[in-house]
């Protein structure tokens, strides 16, 4: 698949601290990639370097917007920084038109589209109000619009969900899905992995500035051996045999219900067969553990610690 962003051996130190330590990643056109890791892992530094706000100590960053590799063109990228704000003493619409103008969008076009966005967000009545009149939640929506109003082929969202109320979280997810459907490539960072897991096609897990895991989300999950199995069966039946199954660990148990972890080298099928033969199963779900757990487990296996800044 064609990549729109290629990063090779990117590194950046602040004094003795290696904020980003030789990471390489590529983002395919039209996908949503999650750059995930705890606070202080180096996500923001990496994104700022991609956006050309910080200069890397080492490494290469190249873009491919129209079939050939090219250096950074800021007008083709939308950016929502983690620390964000707009001109509070300026009217909402003027804020949007100015920022889109800096990205090269003509003022009349920007104004028209900004008004459409504001209408859609139920902020139409505030278009000519100063930004400071808006509530925090409303301002967050305006900031989001500011990052995509110029219709960039690539957007970088740094912690887009931090500080959002649940209503706005859902709203932003909806927009990100919409962008993806429209062919926009999205690179987003988050420390709350459960929030973005459902959005991402691929992920890049980072800790202490170094890569932990990366690839298609589906593949990572499938290659992870453990499964979480939730089982419902006839409460009258004896389930003590469960404890004997190799690779199976019971997390919680009640008569007729159990939640377990299973990791078998031959996959889940042998377990299903055994359960089916010994119990009258009324319901069963098999799930891969959440990304957050995979992340922590992978780091633990490597003997590293997780920094929480």
């Amino acid at each position, binding site marked *: 698949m064609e990549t729109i962003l290629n990063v090779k051996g990117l590194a950046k130190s602040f004094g003795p601290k290696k904020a980003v330590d030789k990471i390489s990643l590529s983002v395919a056109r039209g996908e949503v990639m999650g750059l995930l890791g705890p606070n202080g892992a180096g996500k923001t530094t990496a994104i700022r370097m991609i956006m050309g706000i910080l200069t890397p100590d080492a490494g290469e960053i190249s873009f491919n917007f129209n079939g050939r590799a090219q250096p950074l063109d800021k007008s083709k990228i939308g950016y929502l920084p983690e620390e*964000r*704000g707009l001109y*509070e003493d300026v009217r909402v619409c003027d804020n949007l038109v100015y920022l889109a103008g800096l990205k090269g969008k003509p003022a009349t076009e920007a104004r028209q589209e900004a008004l459409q966005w504001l209408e859609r967000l139920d902020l139409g009545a505030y278009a000519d109000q100063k930004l400071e009149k808006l509530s925090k939640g409303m301002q967050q929506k305006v*900031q989001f619009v500011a990052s995509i109003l110029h219709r960039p082929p690539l957007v970088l969202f740094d912690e887009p969900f931090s500080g959002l109320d649940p209503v706005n979280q859902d709203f932003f997810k909806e927009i990100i899905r919409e962008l993806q459907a429209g062919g926009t490539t999205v690179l987003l960072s988050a420390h709350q992995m459960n929030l973005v897991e459902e959005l991402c096609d691929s992920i890049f897990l980072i800790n202490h500035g170094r890569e932990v895991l990366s690839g298609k989300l589906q593949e990572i999950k499938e290659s992870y051996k453990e499964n979480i199995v939730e089982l419902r069966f006839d409460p009258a039946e004896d389930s003590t045999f469960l404890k004997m199954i190799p690779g199976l660990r019971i997390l919680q148990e009640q008569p007729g219900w159990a939640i377990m972890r299973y990791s078998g080298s031959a996959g889940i099928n042998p377990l299903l067969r055994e359960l089916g033969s010994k119990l009258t199963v009324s319901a069963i779900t098999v799930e891969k553990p959440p990304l957050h757990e995979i992340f922590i487990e992978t780091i633990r296996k490597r003997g590293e610690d997780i920094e929480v800044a």
Partner: protein
Amino acid sequence: MKWLNVFKVFRWEFLKNLKSPVFLVTTLMMPLIMLLAAGISYYSSVSVSKEEQQVAIIDETGEFFPYLESKLATSPVKVTLHEPAQREQLAKQVEERELNGYLIITAENVQSGMIDYFVRDAKEMNSMALDEAVTAALTRYRMEKTGLTAQEIDLVTAPVVLHPRSVSGEEVSVAAAIAPFFFSMVLVIAVMISGQVLMYGVLKEKRNRIVEILLSSVSALDLLLGKILGFGLLGLLQIGIWMIAGLGVASRFLDLRQLGISPAELFPMVLFFVGGYVMFAALFAAMGATMKDAEGGSQTQGMVLLIPMIPMFASGSILLSPNATWVRVFSYIPIFTPTTMLMRIAATTLPWWEIAATFAVLMLGVAFFIYLGARIFSRGLLQFERTISFKEIGKMMRKNY
């Protein structure tokens, strides 16, 4: 660097701040405050010199009083002659503020010239007019005592005025000496006001976090240049308004032709003015980028802002001896160049090469400070949570961020 981006930032900053209340208030208030200050000092100087004073004289020589009385004939200081026996009564009158004070003239102090003036409170006396009159009267009295004739005395006491002229014969007018000071004052005030507005503007963008969004579209240098130019035009507009208002008021009292600034002088002055403005603006913007909040600006940062003012503290000496060695040295230190040269150009006629050389130095300074400013600017802007120390600024200079 993209000039289109610089232009967009410039236009935004100019229009946004033109409409801001701060600009309106400083633009309108400044002339009002200056007018008020000028009015107060003019009124007080007039009223003090016209205030009537009653002074009693005890003249033991019996001869001196008429000399003094004739000297004070047209003065607001009124003298009356009294007997030595009345001294206690006079002292009482001084205490009760019926008299401003009294003098005792004896044969002895006429000789020594040490005359006591008794007043209620030695600190509040305003005795300049009296002092002059007593000195003049005493000089005349002594001369007549030595036997000089009236003509001889007039000859000796005829006033001497040292009248400076350049070798080519040009006169030096008082107005022409004030103008350079006025121009450099205007530069410093304009730089201080628009520089501080710029600095707090940068700080505000840093505080409300918009700066990172801006940097995702334009480079730090584009942003810095756009801001400097935007605030520069704003500053020039403000000065223009002040000048027109100031000249309008001044033309009622003065003959403006006496200001003695020719277009040939005005052109280099404008160059130094603009160059100086850009240099200081870059410095101020960079300072704003290193600060966390308005209160957090450290002492050292405050000191940096005073640097442009240093030549102003020495303005008297620079205007009086514009070609002294130390003044020349000052002219070649970029951060002092604009203020010093503005004063020198107006105070004296400089050879063209000196103007050209100092201007070249200034341009180097402008380039250096924009470069330095852009570096501090781009690094400081993203340090949201703290004020950056000078040590760190030094580190920033050496390392690529």
